[in-house]
C-alpha cells in the first residue's frame, strides 16, 4: 500500500503531465500482479465496494470525533476524504498496511457490521500519507487530476501497444486485468472479448464555431439532426442479453425495465434516452426523476415511460460496422428498424436543409417552437470513432438565453477551489425583493475568481456554515438553455444549464431582471 500511496501523492501534486505519465509507467512496470491491476482499477474508477462508502467512513470517524468539529473541519478542507484522513485522532505504530490487493479483499469480504472496526484499525495503523490514500481508495473520489485516458496512455507507453487498441478491449475486461497485463507484457494473445455484447466508447461531437467553421464546411457533405435534450445512451442487444449503458459505460438497465424488456433484435445502438408518452419527449426534469431512482417505480413507469431515439449503429447483428461511413451506417440502421419492429425505440429524423442559413433558421425555429437544444451536424463520410475526433460531428446549440441576475449567496467550492467562494445563488426582482432563480458554479478566469472571492468576503451580511449571504449589489449576466416552471423554487422558475457568462461590475442591482422578464422564457419552451 505504501507504494500505491506514494504514487497517488505524486500524481496529485505533480503538475507536469509528462512526469505523471513517467510515474504511472514505472509503477505498472515494477509492481507485480494483481496489485498493479487493482491500482489501475482505482485510477480508472472501475472499482466500487458494496459496503465501503463515504457515509460509512464518516460514521466511523464520528464515533471518535465531535460532530460539530468534524463539520467545521469539512467546511474548511472542502474534501470529505481528506478531512477524514487529517482528522483521525489515533496514531499507532505506523506499521505497514496490507497490500492493495489484500485491502480490497478485506473491504469486499468483511461483514457490514465489522467494517467500522476494520476501517478504524487501518486508519490508526496508517502513516499520514497512507491514511490519505486509504480514504481515497475507500471513498472512490480520487480527485488527483488523473484521467482514465492517462492511465491507459501509461499502459501504452509501458508496452508499446497503441492506446486505441487498449481502448478497444477495455470495456470487456475484468479487474484486476490479468489478461490485459499478460497481453501487454507479450506473454499472452490479445484478450478475446465478444465485441458485439459489450460497451463501446462513444463518439462525441465538438461545438461548432459559427464564424470560424461554417464558412469552411460544405453543407452538402453533412447530415443534420435535432439535438435531443435527454441523456446519451448505448443500447447493447446481445442476443439474449440487453444492456443499457450511460455515456461513461455505467449500466443503467435496472432503472429502465420498460425499455430493456421490450426491445428486439441484435445490435449495438447509439441514441438519446428520453421520457414521454407516444414518443413525445417530456421535460428533462421528468427524466431526471427516473434517473435518480436505481429501480423504477410503478408510478414512474406509467407516467413517464422511457424510450430511445436512435441515431447511430455500431454493430449490425454481430458485425462491427464502425468503419463504415455515416451514410452506410444510417442505411443499415433504417433497414434494421424495418426488420425489427420496436415499441420503445424510434429513429431520430434527418433534417433536410438547403444551406447553413436555412439550417440556422430551422435551429432557431426548433428552439422557439419546440424547445430543441440545437442541431447536430455529422459528416456523411465519417466512420464511428470513439472519443472526440475533430471534423466529424458538430453540435450547434441554440443561442443561450441571457438574464441579468443579482448575487444572493455564495458557497465555498470543493477540491481545488475549496478556499474560494465559487458557487453562487442568484436571483431576480419580485416587487421589492430578490428571489432566487438558480445556482451556478464559477466560470471565469482565476483572476476574476479572486476578485469575486474578495468582493464576497467584503460584502458578507451573514454566514451560515459554508454559505455566505451577501449584499444584493453585484450583477451577474447568467446564460441558460431554458426556463421551466418549478414548484421547488420560491420564484416559481427554474433555469436549465445556468452558467455565469459575465460579472457586471458596472451594472447596478436595480437594473437586474424581474420575474416578469423571466416568464417570457418559460413561455417559449
Amino acid at each position, binding site marked *: 500500500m505504501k507504494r500505491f500511496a506514494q504514487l497517488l*501523492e505524486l500524481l496529485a501534486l505533480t503538475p507536469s503531465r509528462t512526469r505523471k505519465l513517467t510515474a504511472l509507467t514505472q509503477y505498472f512496470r515494477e509492481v507485480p500482479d494483481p496489485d498493479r491491476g487493482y491500482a489501475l482499477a482505482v485510477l480508472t474508477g472501475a472499482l466500487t465496494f458494496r459496503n465501503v462508502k463515504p457515509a460509512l467512513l464518516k460514521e466511523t470517524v464520528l464515533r471518535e*470525533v465531535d460532530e460539530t468539529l468534524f463539520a467545521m473541519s469539512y467546511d474548511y*478542507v472542502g474534501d470529505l476524504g481528506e478531512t477524514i484522513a487529517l482528522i483521525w485522532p489515533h496514531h499507532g505504530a505506523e506499521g505497514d498496511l496490507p497490500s492493495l490487493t489484500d485491502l480490497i479483499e478485506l473491504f469486499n469480504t468483511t461483514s457490514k457490521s465489522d467494517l467500522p472496526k476494520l476501517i478504524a484499525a487501518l486508519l490508526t495503523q496508517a502513516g499520514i500519507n497512507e491514511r*490519505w490514500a486509504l480514504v481515497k481508495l475507500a471513498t472512490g473520489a480520487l480527485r488527483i487530476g488523473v484521467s482514465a485516458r492517462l492511465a491507459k496512455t501509461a499502459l501504452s507507453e509501458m508496452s508499446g501497444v497503441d492506446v486505441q487498441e487498449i481502448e478497444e478491449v477495455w470495456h470487456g475486461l475484468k479487474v484486476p486485468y490479468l489478461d490485459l497485463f499478460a497481453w501487454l507484457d507479450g506473454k499472452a494473445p490479445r484478450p478475446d472479448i465478444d465485441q458485439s455484447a459489450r460497451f463501446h466508447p462513444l463518439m462525441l461531437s465538438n461545438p461548432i464555431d459559427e464564424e470560424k467553421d461554417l464558412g469552411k464546411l460544405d453543407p452538402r457533405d453533412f447530415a443534420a439532426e435535432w439535438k435531443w435534450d435527454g441523456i446519451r445512451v448505448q443500447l447493447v442487444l446481445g442476443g439474449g442479453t440487453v444492456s443499457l449503458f450511460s455515456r461513461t459505460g455505467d449500466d443503467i438497465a435496472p432503472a429502465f425495465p420498460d425499455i430493456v424488456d421490450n426491445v428486439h433484435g441484435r445490435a449495438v445502438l447509439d441514441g438519446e434516452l428520453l421520457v414521454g408518452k407516444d414518443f413525445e419527449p417530456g421535460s428533462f426534469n421528468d427524466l431526471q426523476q427516473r434517473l435518480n431512482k436505481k429501480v423504477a417505480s410503478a408510478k414512474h413507469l406509467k407516467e413517464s415511460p422511457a424510450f430511445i431515439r436512435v441515431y447511430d449503429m455500431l454493430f449490425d447483428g454481430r458485425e462491427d460496422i464502425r468503419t463504415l461511413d455515416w451514410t452506410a451506417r444510417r442505411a443499415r440502421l433504417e433497414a434494421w428498424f424495418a426488420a425489427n419492429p420496436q415499441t420503445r425505440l424510434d429513429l431520430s429524423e434527418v433534417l433536410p436543409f438547403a444551406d447553413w442559413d436555412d439550417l440556422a433558421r430551422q435551429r432557431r425555429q426548433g428552439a422557439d417552437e419546440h424547445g430543441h437544444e440545437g442541431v447536430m451536424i455529422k459528416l456523411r463520410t465519417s466512420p464511428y470513432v470513439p472519443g472526440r475526433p475533430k471534423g466529424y460531428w458538430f453540435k450547434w446549440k441554440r443561442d443561450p438565453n441571457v438574464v441579468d441576475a443579482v448575487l444572493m449567496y455564495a458557497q465555498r467550492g470543493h477540491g481545488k477551489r475549496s478556499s474560494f467562494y465559487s458557487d453562487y445563488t442568484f436571483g431576480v426582482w419580485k416587487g421589492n425583493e430578490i428571489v432566487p432563480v438558480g445556482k451556478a458554479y464559477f466560470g471565469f478566469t482565476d483572476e476574476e475568481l479572486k476578485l469575486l472571492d474578495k468582493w464576497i*468576503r467584503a460584502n458578507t451580511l451573514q454566514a451560515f456554515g459554508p454559505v455566505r449571504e451577501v449584499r444584493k449589489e453585484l450583477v451577474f449576466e447568467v446564460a441558460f438553455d431554458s426556463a421551466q416552471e418549478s414548484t421547488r423554487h420560491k420564484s416559481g422558475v427554474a433555469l436549465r444549464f445556468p452558467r455565469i457568462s459575465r460579472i457586471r461590475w458596472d451594472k447596478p442591482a436595480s437594473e437586474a431582471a424581474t420575474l416578469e422578464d423571466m416568464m417570457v422564457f418559460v413561455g417559449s419552451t
Partner: protein
Amino acid sequence: MASQILDRDLHIRAIDAFIDPNVPRERAIITHGHADHARSGHGAVLATPDTIAIMKVRYGEDCAGRFEPLDFGVPLKIEDVTITLYPAGHILGSAQVLVEQAGQRVVVTGDYKRLRDRTAQPYEPVACDLMVTEATFGLPVFQHPHPSVEIGRLLKSVADQPERAHLIGCYALGKAQRVIALLRDAGWDQPIYLHGAMLRLCALYEELGVSLGDLRPALDVPKAQLAGQIVVAPPSAIRDRWSRRFPDPVVCQASGWMSVKQRARQALVELPLVISDHCDWGELQQTIRETGAETVWVTHGREDALVYWCRTQGLQAEPLNIQGFEDDGGEGAGE
C-alpha cells in the same frame, strides 16, 4: 474580574496601551515582528530587544516614536499594572504578554508554538485567569508532523532528483531561518541560496546569535550550478518569473497549511512541507489546559472551532473577531 483589565481590541485600560494594534497608537506592546502584529507609526513601542531589532530592520530605525526594550521575565510596573514578557517560541524575540492587575492575571499569547526550535526562545507556559490565544491552526484536522520528518522528505527528494533545484517558499521572517536551521541540523552543509528578500533578516538572525551556515544570494549564480541545490524564497517568488532562473525547479512550500493536499495542489506546490511555527490542534488544547485559564478569548484564525471546544470543556470562551485578521489560510496574513 480579569476581563475588566483588557478590552476586546486588546486595549489595556488602566495604562491605555494596545497589544499588537493594527492602527497607529500612542502606546503599543508588540508580541513579535510579523507584519500582522508589528506595524509602523506607533508612539511608544514596548517589546523584546530582538523584536525591536527586527522592526527596525523591516520598517526603519524611526518606525516608532520611541522604543522601550523589555527582557523576558522582567516585570515592568506601570501604575497598578505589571507587564511581563514570556517567550512564545514562535520566532526570534516573540513574546507572550502577561498583564497583572489587582491579583488577576491576563495572558495574550501572540503567535506561539510548543515545539523546540533553536531560532526562537522556547515557549514557557504562563498560568493565568484570562487567556487570549491565537487559533491559526484551530481545527482538529491540523496535526503537525515532526519537522524532522518533513526535512527528511525534502532531503530525499533532493537526493532523488539531483538535476533539479528545490525552491522552498517560506516567509522571510522566522520560517526561512527555521527551515535553514532545520536543514543544518539534519546535516545539509552545502550553501543555501537566498532570494534577495531573505538576506537582511538572515543576517540579523546571525547577528543575534542564530547560526545559519553558508548562505549566498541566488542572484547571478549560473543556472547549471543550482542543480541539486536548495533555494529559499518568499512564496510569491517561487511561482513567479524569478523562478525561471533555476533548473526545472521543484516548488516546495513550508507551512502548516500544507497538510491539506488539495491546498497544496491549488497552490501548485509539488512538495508540500508541513512545517509550522504555530501550535497544532492538540498543542492548543494542551496549552489552554496548562494555563488553568477559566476564560479564553480566541483570535487569529479558526476561532469558532476552538471556542466551541473550550465551551465543551466548561470554559468561558469567546471569539474576538479582531478586524484585519479575517483570513482563510491565505498566504498574506498569519505569518
